[in-house]
């Protein structure tokens, strides 16, 4: 009886395993394909069989890619934008989250309500005014034009507030009695205990900014200032002689840092998604 029950359960387990293996393959295959395709010629890429072998065209692809745009410069732009954005979001949002979590002040609830409402306003509403504004500031076609508007990351404020609310107020009080200033208390005592959630916020922000397309497309118009995704999209624009080998080489240069980053921090990544869902 017991034995047959076990086998029956074992049979039921086959279905999840089959589905999970299929999901895993389907999920990973396109990413791996990017790296393989980077080594093939444009014609080979249209042939399905090439996905499982390395080709010999990587040098040629690199030459064509560099001829189109200085991809290293574009990669540097991508890194600069994503890193500066990530650091600033973590800093600014944790400070704001701290104010909401640990202080009572006039207008706090109203302000919080306004922020909650503005989370539902789609980014597209601000595209035209931001473009006019940033042109007026002389910032269009500079990297800060991409970073600055994105810094209004309300999700980050909420995430930090949630986590900072759990920080014991007694500890804050005793640190204050010891005469430490509020900023110093925050940065030397509170923030170091927030490392896990900061890591989650950092990873989500980084990946989001790394793949950002619509706003950079509007804010940047000089190939030298482009991020990698913008260059890749431009390489396929109408009127271009499309070289998919070169495009996939560029795509793998954009993908590799994220994959490495992810392998190191995957726990925080999952945690970030979960915290956004359950608490936010």
């Amino acid at each position, binding site marked *: 009886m017991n034995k047959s029950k076990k086998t029956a359960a074992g049979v039921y*387990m086959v279905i999840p395993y089959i589905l999970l293996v299929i999901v*895993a393959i389907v999920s990973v295959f396109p990413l791996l394909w990017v790296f393989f395709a980077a080594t093939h010629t444009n014609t080979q890429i249209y042939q399905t069989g090439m996905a499982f072998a390395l080709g010999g065209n990587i040098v040629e692809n690199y030459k064509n890619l560099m001829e189109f745009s200085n991809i290293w410069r574009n990669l540097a732009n991508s890194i600069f934008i994503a890193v500066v954005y990530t650091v600033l979001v973590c800093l*600014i949002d944790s400070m*704001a989250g701290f104010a909401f979590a640990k202080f009572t002040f006039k207008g706090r609830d109203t*302000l919080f309500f306004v922020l909650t409402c503005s989370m539902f*306003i789609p980014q597209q509403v601000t595209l*035209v005014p931001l473009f006019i504004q940033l042109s007026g500031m002389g910032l269009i076609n500079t990297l800060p034009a991409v970073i600055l508007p994105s810094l*209004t990351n309300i999700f980050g404020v909420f995430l930090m507030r949630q986590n900072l609310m759990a920080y014991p107020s007694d500890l804050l009080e005793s640190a204050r009695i010891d005469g430490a200033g509020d900023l110093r208390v925050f940065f030397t005592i509170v923030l170091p205990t927030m490392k896990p959630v900061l890591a989650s916020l950092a990873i989500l922000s980084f990946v989001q900014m790394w793949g950002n397309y*619509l706003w950079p497309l509007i804010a940047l118009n000089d190939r030298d200032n482009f991020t990698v995704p913008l260059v890749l999209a431009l390489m396929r624009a109408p009127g271009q002689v499309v070289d*998919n080998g070169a495009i996939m080489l560029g795509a793998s240069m954009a993908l590799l840092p994220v994959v490495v980053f992810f392998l190191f921090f995957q726990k925080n990544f999952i945690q970030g998604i979960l915290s956004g869902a359950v608490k936010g």
Partner: protein
Amino acid sequence: MKDKTKRKLVPWLFLTPFLVLFIIFMAYPTIYSIVISFTNFRAGKFNFVGWANFKFVFNDATFLKAVGNTFILMLIQVPIQTFLCVVLANFLNIARLKLKGMFRMLSFTPVLIDAVSYSIVFSLFFSNDPASLANTALGLFGVQPVEWVNMVWPARILLVIAVTWRWTGYNSIIILGGLQNISHDLYEAAELDGAGPVKQFFAITIPSIKPVILFSVVLSVTGTLQLFTEPNLITSGGPVNSTLTIVQYLYNTGFKAFSYGVASAGAYVLAIMIAILTFIQMRVTKEKD
């Protein structure tokens, strides 16, 4: 007294960096956008035109088509994805599952690749070429090659497949978070009452994860309403505008034709649609409780 005022300023000290940015780059442009939507921009000047831009948008066949297309994509994509997510999350939550961490990790790798790269990859997988990956796969089942981006429904299906590929794993992790918060006692009690796994699933699991499912649906609805990169790069909105989305329309009017007023009016129409849909979804799930 002086000390007290000083203490009152402390929270504002922490809030200032965020608030300054919020006011300049969010609050101000949001309001400015309302003003722009009632004007037209001619020779460097904004002229007040009343409701003309809104009237234009609602009478513009292209805009209406874009709204229709976007809703078609949403109405197909979101239910499929949500169903897949609930199944996948439940499988990922099986207690005896081996290699759990690996399966979880692999299932959301699709969000790692940037939107542009993955769109290009999908346009290659589903190219019109008879030798493309999708057409080769169909050939195994004796199906003739499909001209994916030249036909209305194949182009739409292709976009649905691409978006579902990208977001199913991510949303499954969200739903998995809800599953992990269900107390084991509930299941044990149900088992003592003689409830089988199917009954347990519908009586305990589904009601418990309703809030996370709602969250995932709201995210997906909002996300599909704002689709841009995929239709822009995979189908270019074609054939004959049959996959043109709302945001593509806004981009084309605002930044190709430079009709700022029309683009702002359209953006507000989109914002109102998102607000209404979010509100409805929240109401629907609340009423059932």
